[in-house]
């Protein structure tokens, strides 16, 4: 009878583990498909729309689409001016006017979508000047759980320099800060989309 218990335990455990693994793979596939796959090369061009906040702009060409987000968790409410560096926490400047034509990026400061991750929401602002990405400023980084706040602090400068040197958000995620970088890059990409970059 003990043999039956041993066999039962092994079979049941194996079945449960396989089911769990399978379910995890399904979740992974779903997040990849929705363009919100941190660490995945498939998601190298995240649209940032799947998990965007309801207040996020929807189009690239509609005037006023780049209006500053109310961004509830953000410390810098304004949409920024055209100076290239937003005055963090300063009074809201007039909303940047989105490019009338998609040909080439229009200089300005663009606020990316709010991106939800397991460890909290992420939002960045991208400055474009002379057709180049000149700065990325995090407005909100992952902070759910104290570890992830630390990761965010460490990851943000690295992510910023990668975006500046690659001149795009197509950069695979950072190990150890998968969620932060996934959310960061999604938000960057949505800002670039607004700029027609």
């Amino acid at each position, binding site marked *: *009878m003990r043999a*039956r*218990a041993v066999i*039962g*335990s092994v079979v*049941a*455990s*194996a079945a*449960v*583990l396989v*089911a*769990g*693994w399978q*379910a*995890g*793979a*399904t*979740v*992974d596939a779903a*997040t990849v498909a929705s363009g919100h*796959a*941190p*660490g*995945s090369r498939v998601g190298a061009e995240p649209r940032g729309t799947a998990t965007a906040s309801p207040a996020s702009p929807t189009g690239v060409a509609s005037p006023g689409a780049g209006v500053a987000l109310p961004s509830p968790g953000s410390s810098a409410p304004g949409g920024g001016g055209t100076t290239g560096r937003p005055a963090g926490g300063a009074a809201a400047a007039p909303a940047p006017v989105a490019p009338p034509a998609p040909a080439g990026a229009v200089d300005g400061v663009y606020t990316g979508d709010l991106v939800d991750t*397991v*460890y909290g929401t992420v939002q960045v602002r991208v400055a474009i000047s002379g057709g180049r990405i000149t700065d990325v400023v995090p407005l909100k980084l992952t902070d*759910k*759980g*104290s*570890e*992830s706040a*630390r*990761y965010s602090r*460490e990851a943000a400068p690295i992510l910023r320099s990668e975006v500046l040197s690659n001149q795009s958000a197509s950069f695979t995620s950072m*190990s*150890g*800060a*998968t969620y932060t970088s996934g959310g960061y890059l999604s938000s960057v990409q949505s800002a670039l989309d607004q700029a027609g970059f």
Partner: protein
Amino acid sequence: MTLTDRVPGLALEKRRARFARRSLASDVLITCLWASGAVAVALYLSSGSVGRTSSAAEIITTVGAICGLVGCNYILVMLVLAARIPLLDRTIGHEQAIAVHRTMGKPALYLLLAHAALLLTGYGMSAGVNPIAEIIPMLSIPDMPLAFIALGLMITVVVTSLVAVRRRFSYEAWHLIHLLSYVAVAFAIPHQLSVGGVLADSTWQRYYWIALYVIAFGTIAVFRFVVPVVSSVRHGITVAAISPVAPGVTSMFLRGRGLSALNAVGGQFFVWRFLTRKTWWHSHPITLSALPTDTVARITVRGLGDGSSRVLNVPVGTRVMIEGPYGLFTSATRIAPKVAFVAAGIGVTPIRAMLEQGEFGPGEATVLLRASQPDEAYLWDEIEQLATRRGAACYSLVGPRASGANSWMSVGDAQRGVTIESILPDLANTDLYLCGPGGWLDSISAAARAAGVPRHQIHSERFDW
């Protein structure tokens, strides 16, 4: 005696069906117990982040988290096993449940240690520091100091339970330390919720863990606190009389109301708590040495440990709290047509009660009693009378222990050429109920196994005091 017991074939059929049911239930329970660890892992995997781990640090961190989940899962299972749940007691028996509880202690602790070590390593690698240096930043995270304390407490609990270490402590001291495991489990909860975000975010995982915590702490609260208090109040048990049986051995009579409602059968024990100022905080598992009537129960104690000798001195009229009845060392586990009751030393007490219960026909039972010296023949007179009245044969083995494989009998009997088969000729068709000290039990069980008795026909209860 019921009708079926008088019709041997029918009784046998019933016993076999009952045995099949019970072993199926016990196998299902054991399967659930082990598979619960796999469920903990599977729920973690199903949240979906694991397939995306790429760096060494992430893999180490993930494995570390899994170790923590499985370790915690088994700690909670251990609490359930120690909760004295009636269903568990009827299926695998309290003794077996505690035996499983004991074997799980060390592996569970290793998993928790691996959890701490791997996470310190993984976090350390991603921060570029060594695991020891990582302890300081970890301690600055809310809830983590408590988690470190929890691990320290758990180490203390397991180390004090190692056989070699436990001998250095009195039962009472060990038991107090052991209660720290509740504190350890409670202290570990906050960091699972805040730092191990998986518990808060993925719903199935959340429900599973909440359910497990509720079952573990709920069963302990109900079966170790509420039920004992209710049944103690209801039955109002007090010490009625104390009478010496032999030097160091005492019978205690307990008076109460409606004791038959407890449905205690011969061979079972209660956990007793004598409410005097010196003894209230210590509970004693003691077997009934006679079948209880509706108003009177009797236990017989040999005073060896500090606690049990103090129990012998409580005044008449002392109020008593009870938990029980517990134990599968009863006729409920009979499977063979014949039965032998074999006892050594103070191990006679459950045998005495089972004989009185008498679920066997004339000529079907044999009693075998073992004592090193004639003055250790506790309750033998009562047992001999009962055996005669029930038509059971009764033998005794008295004298210093024989050597080697015969150490379950006396030197004199070994020299006369006594064997287990010579005492119990129809051994293959006999249920053996063995009760006595550990070494003696091992010896006679081995002799019975060597003579071809199937394992499920050997029922043993260890009496080490």
